[in-house]
Protein backbone atom coordinates (compact mmCIF):
# COMPACT_ATOMS: atom_id res chain seq x y z
CA UNK A 1 0.00 0.00 0.00
CA UNK A 2 2.87 2.35 0.86
CA UNK A 3 4.30 1.55 -2.59
CA UNK A 4 1.01 2.62 -4.18
CA UNK A 5 1.08 5.98 -2.41
CA UNK A 6 4.71 6.52 -3.41
CA UNK A 7 3.90 5.77 -7.06
CA UNK A 8 1.05 8.31 -6.88
CA UNK A 9 -1.58 5.90 -8.12
CA UNK A 10 -5.10 7.08 -7.26
CA UNK A 11 -5.37 6.42 -3.49
CA UNK A 12 -8.89 5.05 -3.89
CA UNK A 13 -7.49 2.32 -6.12
CA UNK A 14 -4.61 1.66 -3.71
CA UNK A 15 -6.96 1.26 -0.76
CA UNK A 16 -9.31 -0.99 -2.71
CA UNK A 17 -6.50 -3.26 -3.88
CA UNK A 18 -5.01 -3.33 -0.35
CA UNK A 19 -8.41 -4.30 1.06
CA UNK A 20 -9.04 -7.03 -1.49
CA UNK A 21 -5.48 -8.38 -1.06
CA UNK A 22 -5.83 -8.43 2.74
CA UNK A 23 -9.08 -10.38 2.41
CA UNK A 24 -7.60 -12.92 0.03
CA UNK A 25 -4.48 -13.30 2.21
CA UNK A 26 -6.71 -14.17 5.15
CA UNK A 27 -8.19 -17.04 3.15
CA UNK A 28 -11.52 -15.70 1.84
CA UNK A 29 -12.75 -16.56 -1.69
CA UNK A 30 -12.91 -13.75 -4.30
CA UNK A 31 -16.67 -13.18 -4.04
CA UNK A 32 -16.53 -13.32 -0.24
CA UNK A 33 -13.80 -10.65 -0.29
CA UNK A 34 -15.90 -8.37 -2.50
CA UNK A 35 -18.86 -8.93 -0.20
CA UNK A 36 -16.77 -8.17 2.91
CA UNK A 37 -15.50 -4.97 1.29
CA UNK A 38 -19.00 -3.95 0.24
CA UNK A 39 -20.32 -4.57 3.74
CA UNK A 40 -17.48 -2.60 5.35
CA UNK A 41 -18.09 0.30 2.92
CA UNK A 42 -21.83 0.38 3.60
CA UNK A 43 -21.43 0.28 7.38
CA UNK A 44 -18.92 3.17 7.15
CA UNK A 45 -21.34 5.52 5.35
CA UNK A 46 -21.78 7.69 8.45
CA UNK A 47 -18.32 9.15 7.68
CA UNK A 48 -19.79 10.91 4.62
CA UNK A 49 -22.72 12.66 6.38
CA UNK A 50 -20.51 15.75 6.80
CA UNK A 51 -20.92 16.51 3.07
CA UNK A 52 -24.52 17.54 3.77
CA UNK A 53 -23.07 20.92 4.82
CA UNK A 54 -21.97 21.67 1.25
CA UNK A 55 -25.24 23.11 -0.17
CA UNK A 56 -25.57 25.77 2.51
CA UNK A 57 -21.84 26.55 2.69
CA UNK A 58 -21.74 26.90 -1.11
CA UNK A 59 -24.79 29.14 -1.08
CA UNK A 60 -23.26 31.41 1.57
CA UNK A 61 -19.93 31.53 -0.23
CA UNK A 62 -21.77 32.62 -3.36
CA UNK A 63 -23.31 35.41 -1.30
CA UNK A 64 -19.87 36.54 -0.07
CA UNK A 65 -19.36 34.73 3.26
CA UNK A 66 -15.56 34.50 2.89
CA UNK A 67 -15.31 38.14 1.83
CA UNK A 68 -17.36 39.15 4.87
CA UNK A 69 -15.12 37.07 7.18
CA UNK A 70 -12.09 38.94 5.82
CA UNK A 71 -13.80 42.31 6.18
CA UNK A 72 -14.61 41.62 9.84
CA UNK A 73 -10.96 40.87 10.52
CA UNK A 74 -9.92 44.04 8.67
CA UNK A 75 -11.99 45.99 11.20
CA UNK A 76 -10.04 44.58 14.16
CA UNK A 77 -6.81 46.53 14.50
CA UNK A 78 -5.00 43.99 16.69
CA UNK A 79 -5.85 40.96 14.55
CA UNK A 80 -2.88 38.97 13.29
CA UNK A 81 -2.83 35.54 11.66
CA UNK A 82 -1.18 34.10 14.77
CA UNK A 83 -3.69 35.59 17.15
CA UNK A 84 -6.67 34.43 15.12
CA UNK A 85 -5.32 30.89 14.91
CA UNK A 86 -4.41 30.95 18.62
CA UNK A 87 -7.91 32.07 19.55
CA UNK A 88 -9.46 29.37 17.38
CA UNK A 89 -7.10 26.77 18.87
CA UNK A 90 -8.15 27.70 22.40
CA UNK A 91 -11.87 27.74 21.59
CA UNK A 92 -11.69 24.47 19.66
CA UNK A 93 -9.70 22.66 22.36
CA UNK A 94 -11.85 23.87 25.24
CA UNK A 95 -15.16 23.13 23.50
CA UNK A 96 -13.88 19.69 22.45
CA UNK A 97 -12.92 19.03 26.09
CA UNK A 98 -16.54 19.84 27.00
CA UNK A 99 -17.76 17.29 24.47
CA UNK A 100 -18.73 19.87 21.84
CA UNK A 101 -16.57 18.31 19.11
CA UNK A 102 -19.02 19.31 16.37
CA UNK A 103 -18.39 23.05 16.88
CA UNK A 104 -15.53 23.01 14.37
CA UNK A 105 -14.53 21.05 11.30
CA UNK A 106 -12.95 21.73 7.93
CA UNK A 107 -15.99 22.04 5.65
CA UNK A 108 -18.17 24.02 8.06
CA UNK A 109 -15.68 26.25 9.94
CA UNK A 110 -12.18 26.27 8.45
CA UNK A 111 -12.97 26.78 4.77
CA UNK A 112 -15.73 29.39 5.07
CA UNK A 113 -14.56 31.27 8.20
CA UNK A 114 -11.22 30.54 9.87
CA UNK A 115 -8.97 30.33 6.79
CA UNK A 116 -10.37 33.54 5.22
CA UNK A 117 -9.98 35.36 8.56
CA UNK A 118 -6.37 34.20 8.97
CA UNK A 119 -5.59 35.21 5.38
CA UNK A 120 -7.39 38.52 5.77
CA UNK A 121 -5.32 39.41 8.83
CA UNK A 122 -2.10 38.72 6.92
CA UNK A 123 -3.32 40.79 3.95
CA UNK A 124 -4.03 43.72 6.27
CA UNK A 125 -0.51 43.63 7.63
CA UNK A 126 1.55 42.71 4.62
CA UNK A 127 -0.57 43.55 1.56
CA UNK A 128 -1.13 41.12 -1.29
CA UNK A 129 0.14 37.62 -0.32
CA UNK A 130 2.30 35.42 -2.55
CA UNK A 131 0.49 32.10 -3.28
CA UNK A 132 3.04 30.14 -1.20
CA UNK A 133 2.33 32.23 1.89
CA UNK A 134 -1.42 32.06 1.34
CA UNK A 135 -1.26 28.27 1.09
CA UNK A 136 0.88 28.04 4.23
CA UNK A 137 -1.72 30.02 6.18
CA UNK A 138 -4.52 27.79 4.90
CA UNK A 139 -2.62 24.62 5.82
CA UNK A 140 -2.07 25.99 9.32
CA UNK A 141 -5.75 26.81 9.67
CA UNK A 142 -6.57 23.16 8.88
CA UNK A 143 -3.84 21.91 11.24
CA UNK A 144 -5.13 24.00 14.15
CA UNK A 145 -8.57 22.43 13.80
CA UNK A 146 -7.08 18.90 13.90
CA UNK A 147 -4.60 19.36 16.73
CA UNK A 148 -6.97 21.25 19.02
CA UNK A 149 -9.66 18.62 18.43
CA UNK A 150 -7.47 15.56 18.99
CA UNK A 151 -5.91 16.80 22.21
CA UNK A 152 -9.09 18.32 23.59
CA UNK A 153 -11.71 15.64 23.00
CA UNK A 154 -10.09 13.00 25.22
CA UNK A 155 -10.73 15.15 28.29
CA UNK A 156 -14.47 14.54 27.78
CA UNK A 157 -15.57 11.26 29.36
CA UNK A 158 -18.18 10.19 26.82
CA UNK A 159 -16.01 10.52 23.71
CA UNK A 160 -15.46 7.56 21.36
CA UNK A 161 -11.81 6.95 22.21
CA UNK A 162 -12.42 6.86 25.97
CA UNK A 163 -15.31 4.44 25.50
CA UNK A 164 -13.15 2.30 23.24
CA UNK A 165 -10.35 2.19 25.83
CA UNK A 166 -12.79 1.24 28.57
CA UNK A 167 -14.48 -1.40 26.43
CA UNK A 168 -11.21 -2.97 25.37
CA UNK A 169 -9.68 -3.03 28.87
CA UNK A 170 -12.91 -4.47 30.30
CA UNK A 171 -12.71 -7.34 27.81
CA UNK A 172 -9.20 -8.01 29.07
CA UNK A 173 -10.25 -8.03 32.71
CA UNK A 174 -8.78 -4.63 33.60
CA UNK A 175 -11.33 -2.16 34.95
CA UNK A 176 -10.73 1.59 34.68
CA UNK A 177 -12.90 4.65 35.28
CA UNK A 178 -13.67 6.88 32.25
CA UNK A 179 -13.27 9.95 34.48
CA UNK A 180 -9.74 8.82 35.42
CA UNK A 181 -8.87 8.26 31.75
CA UNK A 182 -10.08 11.78 31.01
CA UNK A 183 -7.98 13.27 33.83
CA UNK A 184 -4.82 11.58 32.56
CA UNK A 185 -5.41 13.10 29.13
CA UNK A 186 -4.93 16.57 30.62
CA UNK A 187 -1.09 16.64 30.83
CA UNK A 188 -0.80 15.85 27.11
CA UNK A 189 -3.53 18.39 26.31
CA UNK A 190 -1.53 21.11 28.09
CA UNK A 191 1.66 20.08 26.27
CA UNK A 192 -0.19 20.20 22.93
CA UNK A 193 -1.46 23.71 23.69
CA UNK A 194 1.97 25.01 24.71
CA UNK A 195 3.82 23.38 21.81
CA UNK A 196 1.44 24.35 19.05
CA UNK A 197 0.76 27.86 20.27
CA UNK A 198 4.51 28.52 20.47
CA UNK A 199 4.76 27.39 16.86
CA UNK A 200 1.89 29.68 15.88
CA UNK A 201 3.70 32.66 17.44
CA UNK A 202 6.75 31.83 15.33
CA UNK A 203 4.47 31.55 12.29
CA UNK A 204 3.77 35.29 12.40
CA UNK A 205 7.49 36.02 12.23
CA UNK A 206 7.88 33.57 9.36
CA UNK A 207 5.03 35.21 7.44
CA UNK A 208 6.56 38.65 7.81
CA UNK A 209 9.90 37.38 6.58
CA UNK A 210 8.59 35.35 3.62
CA UNK A 211 6.41 38.23 2.39
CA UNK A 212 9.36 40.63 2.44
CA UNK A 213 11.57 38.04 0.68
CA UNK A 214 8.93 37.65 -2.03
CA UNK A 215 8.86 41.43 -2.47
CA UNK A 216 12.63 41.60 -2.84
CA UNK A 217 12.51 38.96 -5.55
CA UNK A 218 9.99 40.85 -7.67
Amino acid at each position, binding site marked *: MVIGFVLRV*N*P*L*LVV*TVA*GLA*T*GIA*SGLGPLAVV*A*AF*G*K*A*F*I*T*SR*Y*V*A*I*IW*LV*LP*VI*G*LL*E*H*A*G*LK*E*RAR*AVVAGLSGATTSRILLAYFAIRQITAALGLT*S*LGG*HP*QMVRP*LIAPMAEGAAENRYGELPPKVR*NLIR*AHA*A*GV*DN*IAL*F*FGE*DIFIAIGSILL*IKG*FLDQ*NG*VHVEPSQ*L*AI*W*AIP*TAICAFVIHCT*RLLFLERKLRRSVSVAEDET
Partner: protein
Amino acid sequence: MITLEHIYWLTGLMMAGVALVNLRDPTNPRRFHNTVFWGIYAITFLVGSRLPDVVNGFLVIGMVLVASIRGLGQGKEEGSSKQAREASATHWGNKLFIPALAIPVVTVLGTVLFKKITLHGAPLVDIKQVTVISLAIATVIALSIGMAMLRPPLFAPINEARRLLDAVGWAAVLPQMLAALGALFAVAGVGTVVSGLAQQWIPLDNPSVVVLTYTIGMAIFTMIMGNAFAAFPVMTAGIGLPLIVQRFGGDPTIMAAIGMLSGFCGTLMTPMAANFNIVPTALLELPDENAVIKVQIPTALILLGANILLMNFLVFRH
Protein backbone atom coordinates in the same frame (compact mmCIF):
# COMPACT_ATOMS: atom_id res chain seq x y z
CA MET B 1 -38.20 7.89 14.86
CA ILE B 2 -35.50 9.47 12.73
CA THR B 3 -32.69 6.98 12.18
CA LEU B 4 -29.39 7.01 10.35
CA GLU B 5 -31.15 5.40 7.37
CA HIS B 6 -33.23 8.56 6.78
CA ILE B 7 -30.06 10.66 6.86
CA TYR B 8 -28.53 8.30 4.28
CA TRP B 9 -31.53 8.88 2.01
CA LEU B 10 -30.97 12.64 2.29
CA THR B 11 -27.26 12.24 1.51
CA GLY B 12 -28.16 9.93 -1.39
CA LEU B 13 -30.55 12.55 -2.82
CA MET B 14 -27.81 15.18 -2.66
CA MET B 15 -25.33 12.86 -4.39
CA ALA B 16 -27.94 12.05 -7.06
CA GLY B 17 -28.46 15.79 -7.57
CA VAL B 18 -24.73 16.31 -7.97
CA ALA B 19 -24.67 13.51 -10.57
CA LEU B 20 -27.55 15.10 -12.52
CA VAL B 21 -26.04 18.60 -12.52
CA ASN B 22 -22.83 17.10 -13.89
CA LEU B 23 -24.75 15.19 -16.58
CA ARG B 24 -26.32 18.45 -17.83
CA ASP B 25 -23.08 20.45 -17.76
CA PRO B 26 -21.22 20.40 -21.10
CA THR B 27 -18.39 22.57 -19.63
CA ASN B 28 -17.14 19.55 -17.64
CA PRO B 29 -14.87 17.54 -19.97
CA ARG B 30 -15.42 14.36 -17.93
CA ARG B 31 -19.07 14.86 -17.12
CA PHE B 32 -20.06 11.22 -17.74
CA HIS B 33 -17.32 9.99 -15.40
CA ASN B 34 -18.58 12.36 -12.71
CA THR B 35 -22.19 11.35 -13.30
CA VAL B 36 -21.42 7.64 -12.97
CA PHE B 37 -19.19 8.18 -9.91
CA TRP B 38 -21.62 10.29 -7.89
CA GLY B 39 -24.56 8.29 -9.30
CA ILE B 40 -23.23 4.99 -7.93
CA TYR B 41 -22.38 6.71 -4.66
CA ALA B 42 -25.99 7.94 -4.49
CA ILE B 43 -27.22 4.35 -4.97
CA THR B 44 -25.12 3.10 -2.04
CA PHE B 45 -26.81 5.68 0.17
CA LEU B 46 -30.37 5.28 -1.15
CA VAL B 47 -30.65 1.47 -1.28
CA GLY B 48 -27.27 0.19 -0.02
CA SER B 49 -28.81 -1.13 3.19
CA ARG B 50 -31.13 -3.42 1.22
CA LEU B 51 -28.69 -4.67 -1.44
CA PRO B 52 -26.67 -7.87 -0.91
CA ASP B 53 -23.11 -7.23 0.34
CA VAL B 54 -21.55 -8.58 -2.83
CA VAL B 55 -23.56 -6.14 -5.03
CA ASN B 56 -22.42 -3.25 -2.85
CA GLY B 57 -18.87 -4.53 -3.20
CA PHE B 58 -19.06 -4.44 -6.98
CA LEU B 59 -20.67 -0.98 -6.91
CA VAL B 60 -17.72 0.31 -4.88
CA ILE B 61 -15.23 -1.32 -7.24
CA GLY B 62 -17.11 0.33 -10.12
CA MET B 63 -16.74 3.76 -8.47
CA VAL B 64 -13.04 3.19 -7.89
CA LEU B 65 -12.49 2.19 -11.53
CA VAL B 66 -14.37 5.24 -12.85
CA ALA B 67 -12.29 7.52 -10.59
CA SER B 68 -8.94 5.95 -11.45
CA ILE B 69 -9.30 5.41 -15.21
CA ARG B 70 -8.84 8.88 -16.73
CA GLY B 71 -10.27 10.41 -13.56
CA LEU B 72 -12.99 12.90 -12.73
CA GLY B 73 -13.36 16.44 -14.09
CA GLN B 74 -14.77 19.76 -12.98
CA GLY B 75 -17.21 22.13 -14.66
CA LYS B 76 -16.17 25.72 -15.36
CA GLU B 77 -17.02 27.96 -12.44
CA GLU B 78 -20.25 29.72 -13.16
CA GLY B 79 -21.21 33.30 -12.47
CA SER B 80 -20.10 34.69 -9.16
CA SER B 81 -17.29 37.17 -9.75
CA LYS B 82 -15.21 38.53 -6.88
CA GLN B 83 -16.86 41.96 -7.29
CA ALA B 84 -20.34 40.43 -7.10
CA ARG B 85 -19.41 38.51 -3.96
CA GLU B 86 -17.88 41.59 -2.33
CA ALA B 87 -20.96 43.66 -3.14
CA SER B 88 -23.17 40.93 -1.71
CA ALA B 89 -20.96 40.68 1.39
CA THR B 90 -21.37 44.41 2.01
CA HIS B 91 -25.11 44.19 1.40
CA TRP B 92 -25.76 41.32 3.83
CA GLY B 93 -23.08 42.16 6.40
CA ASN B 94 -22.81 39.96 9.47
CA LYS B 95 -26.18 38.34 8.76
CA LEU B 96 -24.23 36.00 6.49
CA PHE B 97 -22.78 34.37 9.59
CA ILE B 98 -26.20 33.36 10.93
CA PRO B 99 -26.77 30.28 8.74
CA ALA B 100 -23.09 29.29 8.95
CA LEU B 101 -23.04 29.41 12.74
CA ALA B 102 -26.45 27.75 12.92
CA ILE B 103 -24.78 24.49 11.86
CA PRO B 104 -22.58 24.02 14.96
CA VAL B 105 -25.11 25.59 17.33
CA VAL B 106 -28.03 23.42 16.20
CA THR B 107 -25.81 20.31 16.15
CA VAL B 108 -24.75 20.88 19.74
CA LEU B 109 -28.29 21.72 20.89
CA GLY B 110 -29.55 18.63 19.07
CA THR B 111 -27.10 16.28 20.76
CA VAL B 112 -28.30 17.59 24.13
CA LEU B 113 -32.03 18.02 23.51
CA PHE B 114 -32.87 15.03 21.30
CA LYS B 115 -31.99 12.71 24.16
CA LYS B 116 -34.90 14.17 26.11
CA ILE B 117 -37.58 14.56 23.42
CA THR B 118 -39.93 11.62 22.98
CA LEU B 119 -42.90 11.06 20.68
CA HIS B 120 -45.56 8.59 21.90
CA GLY B 121 -43.01 7.20 24.34
CA ALA B 122 -40.35 6.53 21.69
CA PRO B 123 -37.38 8.89 21.24
CA LEU B 124 -37.65 11.29 18.29
CA VAL B 125 -34.25 10.32 16.94
CA ASP B 126 -32.04 7.25 17.28
CA ILE B 127 -30.10 8.08 20.48
CA LYS B 128 -27.09 5.97 19.54
CA GLN B 129 -26.50 8.15 16.46
CA VAL B 130 -27.62 11.45 17.96
CA THR B 131 -24.56 13.51 16.94
CA VAL B 132 -24.59 12.53 13.29
CA ILE B 133 -28.36 12.94 13.02
CA SER B 134 -28.19 16.34 14.77
CA LEU B 135 -25.52 17.45 12.30
CA ALA B 136 -27.71 16.43 9.37
CA ILE B 137 -30.76 18.21 10.81
CA ALA B 138 -28.60 21.27 11.49
CA THR B 139 -27.56 21.45 7.84
CA VAL B 140 -31.22 21.31 6.76
CA ILE B 141 -32.15 24.11 9.17
CA ALA B 142 -29.15 26.21 8.14
CA LEU B 143 -30.04 25.73 4.48
CA SER B 144 -33.64 26.76 5.15
CA ILE B 145 -32.48 29.93 6.91
CA GLY B 146 -30.08 30.65 4.05
CA MET B 147 -32.75 30.12 1.39
CA ALA B 148 -35.29 32.31 3.22
CA MET B 149 -32.72 35.05 3.70
CA LEU B 150 -30.93 35.13 0.34
CA ARG B 151 -33.79 33.95 -1.90
CA PRO B 152 -31.54 32.37 -4.55
CA PRO B 153 -32.90 30.31 -7.47
CA LEU B 154 -34.43 27.01 -6.29
CA PHE B 155 -31.62 24.82 -7.61
CA ALA B 156 -28.77 27.06 -6.39
CA PRO B 157 -27.95 24.85 -3.35
CA ILE B 158 -27.46 21.72 -5.41
CA ASN B 159 -25.40 23.61 -8.00
CA GLU B 160 -23.22 24.96 -5.21
CA ALA B 161 -22.91 21.52 -3.63
CA ARG B 162 -21.80 20.20 -7.02
CA ARG B 163 -19.16 22.92 -7.33
CA LEU B 164 -17.67 22.18 -3.90
CA LEU B 165 -17.96 18.40 -4.10
CA ASP B 166 -16.29 18.26 -7.51
CA ALA B 167 -13.52 20.52 -6.15
CA VAL B 168 -12.87 17.87 -3.50
CA GLY B 169 -13.37 15.09 -6.07
CA TRP B 170 -12.73 11.43 -5.25
CA ALA B 171 -11.00 12.47 -2.01
CA ALA B 172 -14.52 12.95 -0.63
CA VAL B 173 -14.97 9.16 -0.62
CA LEU B 174 -11.48 8.31 0.67
CA PRO B 175 -12.22 8.60 4.43
CA GLN B 176 -15.12 6.17 4.11
CA MET B 177 -12.96 3.82 2.05
CA LEU B 178 -10.22 3.88 4.69
CA ALA B 179 -12.74 3.21 7.44
CA ALA B 180 -13.82 0.16 5.44
CA LEU B 181 -10.19 -0.91 5.05
CA GLY B 182 -9.65 -0.66 8.81
CA ALA B 183 -12.61 -2.97 9.36
CA LEU B 184 -11.13 -5.47 6.90
CA PHE B 185 -7.72 -5.31 8.62
CA ALA B 186 -9.40 -6.09 11.92
CA VAL B 187 -11.23 -9.09 10.41
CA ALA B 188 -8.02 -10.39 8.84
CA GLY B 189 -6.04 -10.09 12.10
CA VAL B 190 -3.25 -7.84 10.79
CA GLY B 191 -2.61 -6.59 14.34
CA THR B 192 -1.54 -9.89 15.90
CA VAL B 193 1.11 -10.31 13.23
CA VAL B 194 2.59 -6.87 13.92
CA SER B 195 2.75 -7.17 17.70
CA GLY B 196 4.30 -10.64 17.30
CA LEU B 197 7.07 -9.09 15.24
CA ALA B 198 7.68 -6.34 17.81
CA GLN B 199 7.92 -8.82 20.69
CA GLN B 200 10.36 -10.92 18.72
CA TRP B 201 12.77 -8.17 17.64
CA ILE B 202 12.88 -5.52 20.36
CA PRO B 203 14.61 -6.09 23.75
CA LEU B 204 11.68 -5.58 26.06
CA ASP B 205 13.26 -6.19 29.49
CA ASN B 206 13.70 -2.52 30.41
CA PRO B 207 10.59 -0.50 31.40
CA SER B 208 11.72 2.62 29.50
CA VAL B 209 12.31 0.64 26.32
CA VAL B 210 8.86 -0.89 26.69
CA VAL B 211 7.24 2.53 27.10
CA LEU B 212 9.19 3.77 24.10
CA THR B 213 8.07 0.78 22.01
CA TYR B 214 4.45 1.15 23.08
CA THR B 215 4.14 4.89 22.42
CA ILE B 216 6.12 4.97 19.18
CA GLY B 217 4.40 1.75 18.12
CA MET B 218 1.01 3.42 18.69
CA ALA B 219 2.09 6.36 16.51
CA ILE B 220 3.53 4.24 13.69
CA PHE B 221 0.72 1.73 13.70
CA THR B 222 -1.78 4.58 13.65
CA MET B 223 0.03 6.03 10.64
CA ILE B 224 -0.33 2.70 8.81
CA MET B 225 -3.97 2.16 9.74
CA GLY B 226 -4.94 5.85 9.56
CA ASN B 227 -6.76 5.54 12.86
CA ALA B 228 -5.63 5.31 16.50
CA PHE B 229 -8.75 3.29 17.32
CA ALA B 230 -7.46 0.48 15.12
CA ALA B 231 -3.95 0.64 16.57
CA PHE B 232 -4.94 0.75 20.24
CA PRO B 233 -6.29 -2.80 20.70
CA VAL B 234 -3.34 -4.25 18.81
CA MET B 235 -0.56 -2.42 20.65
CA THR B 236 -2.24 -2.65 24.05
CA ALA B 237 -2.91 -6.37 23.80
CA GLY B 238 0.56 -7.00 22.35
CA ILE B 239 2.78 -4.74 24.47
CA GLY B 240 0.85 -2.49 26.86
CA LEU B 241 -1.01 -4.99 29.05
CA PRO B 242 1.49 -7.90 29.13
CA LEU B 243 4.61 -5.78 29.63
CA ILE B 244 3.85 -2.30 31.00
CA VAL B 245 1.03 -3.39 33.31
CA GLN B 246 1.70 -7.02 34.17
CA ARG B 247 5.46 -7.31 34.13
CA PHE B 248 6.46 -3.83 35.30
CA GLY B 249 3.38 -2.96 37.36
CA GLY B 250 2.41 0.18 35.43
CA ASP B 251 -0.93 1.91 35.92
CA PRO B 252 -3.36 0.78 33.17
CA THR B 253 -5.37 4.02 33.21
CA ILE B 254 -2.36 6.27 32.63
CA MET B 255 -0.92 3.88 30.07
CA ALA B 256 -4.16 3.73 28.09
CA ALA B 257 -4.83 7.48 28.19
CA ILE B 258 -1.35 8.54 27.11
CA GLY B 259 -1.04 5.58 24.73
CA MET B 260 -4.16 6.65 22.82
CA LEU B 261 -2.86 10.23 22.64
CA SER B 262 0.46 8.94 21.25
CA GLY B 263 -1.60 7.33 18.54
CA PHE B 264 -3.23 10.71 17.82
CA CYS B 265 0.29 12.11 17.18
CA GLY B 266 0.52 9.48 14.43
CA THR B 267 -2.86 10.56 13.01
CA LEU B 268 -1.40 14.03 12.40
CA MET B 269 1.35 12.61 10.19
CA THR B 270 -0.39 10.20 7.83
CA PRO B 271 -2.26 10.54 4.53
CA MET B 272 -4.23 7.48 5.63
CA ALA B 273 -6.19 9.75 8.01
CA ALA B 274 -7.69 11.27 4.89
CA ASN B 275 -10.60 13.14 6.42
CA PHE B 276 -8.27 15.12 8.70
CA ASN B 277 -5.24 15.51 6.44
CA ILE B 278 -6.13 15.08 2.75
CA VAL B 279 -9.73 16.30 2.46
CA PRO B 280 -8.87 19.77 3.90
CA THR B 281 -6.15 20.29 1.26
CA ALA B 282 -8.83 19.71 -1.38
CA LEU B 283 -11.34 21.92 0.45
CA LEU B 284 -8.81 24.74 0.81
CA GLU B 285 -7.61 24.33 -2.79
CA LEU B 286 -3.99 23.67 -1.82
CA PRO B 287 -1.78 22.41 -4.68
CA ASP B 288 0.26 20.12 -2.37
CA GLU B 289 -1.91 17.34 -0.95
CA ASN B 290 0.55 16.85 1.92
CA ALA B 291 0.50 20.55 2.90
CA VAL B 292 -1.53 19.99 6.08
CA ILE B 293 0.59 17.01 7.16
CA LYS B 294 3.75 19.08 6.69
CA VAL B 295 2.62 21.84 9.06
CA GLN B 296 1.50 19.25 11.61
CA ILE B 297 4.62 17.05 11.70
CA PRO B 298 6.76 19.28 14.00
CA THR B 299 3.98 19.51 16.61
CA ALA B 300 3.27 15.78 16.29
CA LEU B 301 6.90 14.77 16.86
CA ILE B 302 7.52 17.14 19.79
CA LEU B 303 4.25 16.06 21.36
CA LEU B 304 5.10 12.38 20.90
CA GLY B 305 8.37 13.07 22.74
CA ALA B 306 6.38 14.78 25.50
CA ASN B 307 4.07 11.75 25.72
CA ILE B 308 7.03 9.38 26.05
CA LEU B 309 8.44 11.46 28.92
CA LEU B 310 5.03 11.83 30.59
CA MET B 311 4.36 8.11 30.46
CA ASN B 312 7.83 7.30 31.80
CA PHE B 313 7.34 9.66 34.75
CA LEU B 314 3.71 8.89 35.52
CA VAL B 315 2.90 5.30 34.71
CA PHE B 316 5.17 3.54 37.22
CA ARG B 317 4.63 5.80 40.25
CA HIS B 318 1.42 5.25 42.17
